[in-house]
């Protein structure tokens, strides 16, 4: 390139050197335009809906907002959601720990195939996740007649809700732990074993402390999704008021009843849960970025 990329040598008494456009970064104008585009897009598409939840929830004042939580159906939805999460999340924690131990600490054939299977639920539509249990356990399903004969109910009952929730939150804990434990290798565990610790002691005092922040990270995401899941749960719930409605399903029912303040009030609780999760997650990334999975360090 010719003269315009050569710096003009400043000499005494002459005008200040001309600032030429840098060839390794964008011009200030281009930067400003790009930043405005990005921030505008994020504010318009992501922050506006979040603001709408709280504005709509408080549209008729704090009194109407609080009144929304006196509805017994809403309270039983909150209770049911907590119960479902209390069953689904611990099961997925146990699975995540077992899977990461087997995959990260040992070499075996078919490992990458197993990894893809663990990630599979993320690429299945929530509606399809719920549907597959209906095909198995529904009235016309494979095991439907057998279940009916033995008076067992899975679909339109708690077990169906739990199964669907486990399905959609399946990979969360495992996929946080596996890459980190693979990075950490096996030398610390081998040292503990050679010093006489048993297998469980090694896991409890060596492995677990090493992955505690990643575990917390995975559990947070798993729990948020478990409490907020809508599509999969909607298929297996049957929408029995006060019986099989979780919080997101209760939001739908209130909304479809044109009870907008109550719908948004209940939704604001879920939004709050999401925000708290996001805040802790972001905090963990900043504070313990080196102790959680490599994918989150940026």
């Amino acid at each position: 390139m010719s003269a315009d990329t050569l710096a003009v040598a400043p000499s005494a008494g002459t005008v200040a050197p001309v600032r030429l456009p840098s060839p390794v970064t964008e011009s200030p104008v281009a930067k400003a335009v790009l930043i405005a585009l990005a921030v505008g897009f994020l504010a318009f598409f992501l922050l506006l809906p979040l603001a709408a939840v709280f504005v709509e929830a408080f549209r008729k004042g704090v009194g109407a907002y609080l009144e929304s939580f006196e509805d017994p159906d809403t309270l039983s939805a909150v209770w049911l959601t907590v119960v479902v999460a209390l069953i689904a999340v611990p099961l997925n924690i146990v699975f995540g720990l077992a899977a990461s131990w087997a995959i990260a600490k040992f070499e075996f054939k078919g490992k990458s195939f197993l990894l893809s299977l663990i990630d599979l639920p993320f690429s299945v539509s929530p509606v399809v996740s719920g549907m597959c249990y209906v095909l198995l356990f529904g009235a016309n399903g494979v095991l439907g007649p057998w279940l009916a004969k033995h008076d067992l109910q899975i679909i339109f009952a708690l077990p169906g809700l739990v199964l669907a929730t486990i399905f959609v939150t399946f990979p969360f804990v495992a996929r946080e732990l596996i890459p980190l434990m693979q990075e950490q290798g096996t030398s610390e565990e081998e040292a503990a074993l050679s010093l006489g610790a048993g297998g469980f002691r090694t896991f409890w005092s060596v492995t677990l402390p090493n992955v505690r922040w990643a575990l917390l990270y995975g559990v947070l995401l798993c729990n948020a999704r478990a409490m907020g899941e809508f599509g999969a749960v909607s298929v297996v719930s049957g929408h029995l008021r006060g019986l099989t409605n979780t919080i997101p399903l209760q939001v739908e029912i209130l909304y479809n009843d044109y009870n907008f303040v109550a719908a948004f009030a209940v939704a604001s609780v879920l939004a709050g849960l999401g925000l708290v999760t996001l805040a802790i997650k972001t905090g963990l990334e900043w504070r313990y970025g080196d102790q959680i999975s490599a994918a989150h360090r940026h």
Partner: protein
Amino acid sequence: MPQFRTPSAIPGFGLTYGFVWLYLSIIILIPLGAVVLWAASLGPAKLVAILTRPDTFSALRLSFGLSLLAAGVNAVFGLIVAWVLTRYSFPGRRFFDAAVDLPFALPTAVAGIALTAIYAQNGWVGSLFAPGSLWASVFGPLKIAYTPLGIFVALVFIGLPFVVRTLQPVLVDLDKELEEASATLGARRPTTLFKVILPTLAPALLTGFALAFARAVGEYGSVIFIAGNIPGVSEIAPLLIITRLEQFDYGGATAIATAMLALSFVILLLVNFTEAWSRKRLGHVR
């Protein structure tokens, strides 16, 4: 016999490995297997007959078409957002970086009713295009909620983080020396951006696009409230599955689900293929 597992001093392989397969089978493999078996029992002829029924076909076309469009918009704006967040410093950068995860953090039903409230005729954005607005007096009124346009808005909302979060680590790892080399060879900044940086980002961009697309096709919660669900016009494929299940038409539901599963599978393959290809070519994309 070839060794299945490399010998190790660490205990617990049998227990954990066995549990992983047991749990995986009960929760994921057997239920998904039921879908595959059910579809297989329909047979290809019946499968095609169901999928080409006008209502089913238009729902699939709507879901796939709008998802493609939304993923495209997300690819463009996701690239800009990822670039700005990794390369520039400006006040509130960390805040906006965290905000990218909002669609993951906000439960889909909550996002659904919030978007509907905003884009309805009396909402913050909807009223700007409703009859009587400045827009309506110039271009005629535009209805967003309860039309395919509303579905598109919801799909843009849920797809954005996939593109941004796929691109960010690649942008961080991007070698500045490449850009400097390009500059010393006389390239102006736009040339460097489009001829050097963009091709390096292409595999990650494609992956992000594919992930956003796959999510959009299967999305239910954030869409059904804003869609209006008019059969043949704004009825999406996942909703049609639920309708069929409620009619105890398991065959019909399975056929639609199979079409969606097949697509997710193709997309997953495509993503894995691009990643393998770019690893070979560039040596560092995660």
